[in-house]
């Protein structure tokens, strides 16, 4: 603990405070996440537990690196690699204009990190611009695995309260408790559109009902033909019936190939949504650059 000196508070995470700090032994800049544990509460928070367990097993250039866990007296310090900012702040600073090559590169890196997680049987479950970090070199790092889970073990139902509302997939919004890697793809598709639209969130719903309405307005209200089994999920409520909008109005700045990929990622029926691996093979990413060029 002595070898780290806190420089500045970066923010408040899902649990505890995050600091920018310097390791005096190596001179390296790191991010320190402080998790309070006292005898008054329920021991180590499950958020922290999951994040540490899973991140320890994930080593990939597009996933934030966990360096160490330091056991203090009343707290745990999680040491992460330091990144300059999150994607939300990056977008805000762009003031409505993001270069198409950056959109392509960021989406590609995001999918690479995701494909790696999924190949290790880990769902992120909370992909949002706040949880994606951008380094000074334009590298994208997936972070905040507090909601992530390992799906290698047989589990009957997963918690339905996952993913920040705007990035939540229609099946989860409709109350599905059995979901898979497709929920992360939906979130990534939302961010893909958000980047191409200069940082404008694609589906900014106010609550669950409003979120579904916005989704159906753009992608059309689903029925048994396009999504077998959906009527079971929709039986408790009446939803207005919309026809899908032209994709050109949704993501006007994407080229033909980009629109095509976007549509593959945003299929309402989760079983028909493309996988991260398939998305990476898409022609849209031909000649993609890594980071800034």
């Amino acid at each position, binding site marked *: 603990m002595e070898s780290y000196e806190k420089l500045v508070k970066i923010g408040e995470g899902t649990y505890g405070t995050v600091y920018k700090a310097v390791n005096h032994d190596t001179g390296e800049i790191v991010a320190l996440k402080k998790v309070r544990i006292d005898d008054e509460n329920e021991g180590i928070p499950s958020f922290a537990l999951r994040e540490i*367990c899973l991140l320890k097993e994930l080593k990939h250039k597009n996933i934030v690196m966990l360096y160490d866990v330091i056991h203090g007296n009343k707290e745990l310090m999680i040491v992460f690699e330091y990144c300059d900012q999150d994607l939300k702040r990056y977008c805000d600073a762009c003031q409505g204009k993001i270069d198409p090559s950056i959109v392509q590169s960021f989406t590609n890196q995001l999918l690479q990190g995701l494909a790696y997680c999924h190949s290790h049987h880990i769902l992120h479950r909370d992909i949002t611009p706040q949880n994606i970090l951008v380094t000074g070199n334009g590298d994208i790092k997936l972070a905040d695995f507090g909601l992530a889970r390992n799906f*290698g*073990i047989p589990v009957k139902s997963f918690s339905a309260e996952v993913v920040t509302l705007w990035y939540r997939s229609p099946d989860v919004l409709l109350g599905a408790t059995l979901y898979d890697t497709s929920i992360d793809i939906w979130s990534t598709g939302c961010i893909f559109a958000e980047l191409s639209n200069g940082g404008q969130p694609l589906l900014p719903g106010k609550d669950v009902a409003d979120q579904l309405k916005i989704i159906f307005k753009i992608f059309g209200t689903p029925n048994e033909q396009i999504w077998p089994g959906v009527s079971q999920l929709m039986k408790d409520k009446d939803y207005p019936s919309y026809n899908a909008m032209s994709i050109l109005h949704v993501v006007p700045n994407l080229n033909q190939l980009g629109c095509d990929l976007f549509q593959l990622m945003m299929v309402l029926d989760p079983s028909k949504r493309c996988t991260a691996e398939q998305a990476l093979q898409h022609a849209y990413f031909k000649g993609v650059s890594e980071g800034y060029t």
Partner: protein
Amino acid sequence: MAVPTEFSGVVLSLENTIYPDEKLQETPSQLDGLSKEMETNLRIAGCEYIQAAGILLKLPQVAMATAQVLYQRYYYSKSFVKYNYEICAMACIFLAAKIEEHPRRIRDVVNVFYHIRRKLNELPNKVMDYMSNEYFHKKSEVIKAERRVLKELGFCVHVKHPHKCIVTYLKILECNDNTELIQKAWNYMNDSLRTDVFMRYTPETIACACIYLSARQLGIGLPSNPPWYEVFDATTKEMEVYLLIVSVIDSVDMLIYQVKYVVDIIAS
């Protein structure tokens, strides 16, 4: 860029940790002078406690299974002489409930163990006083123990269980309609959690051994040329399976009266 710090030299992977034979032979408890027999009993007792508490806490079986594996692993790093087995069992079930996404309040965990202990001592039912020193002391002990377990295991607390393998393998062997066979294999699996086989073998091997044993007992023939289990995992050597079977049988025989004892208490 600096090389990331290794976590106390623990090797990280999503696969279960398999310990080398030396580590399983010379345990910290035995180095502290505890007899092998006593250690085995404490391992079984802790696992029984976990199983019983898990039932009372209405946890799914996977949480008990994870807790039992954590408990067993911990005592290959630490000694029963220095660390109280009951507190550790409480910490393991408390932690496993979080890992498996069925968190339970620490208060409930403490109380359930208190209840079981009173039953064991044939005392009348009583709820623990939540304002008492005894309660505060226990609670703080468990939270400390939880952190010790995490630190000792280097946060490698995901356990891959063979339950799913059993189901998948039986399907491939076209035996998935035989409920008796499935149940028997499943029972062997749950019983073997009280032993150290999970530190010795991969989940795939354990699944094969449980099926092998059950099929033999029920007189069900499975392909033997080539042996069926070689199909499922290249590392499943016949010898390995054999050793495993022996250790399962041994421990199950030894277990039976102890299992019955605690189960009776729960049922009452």
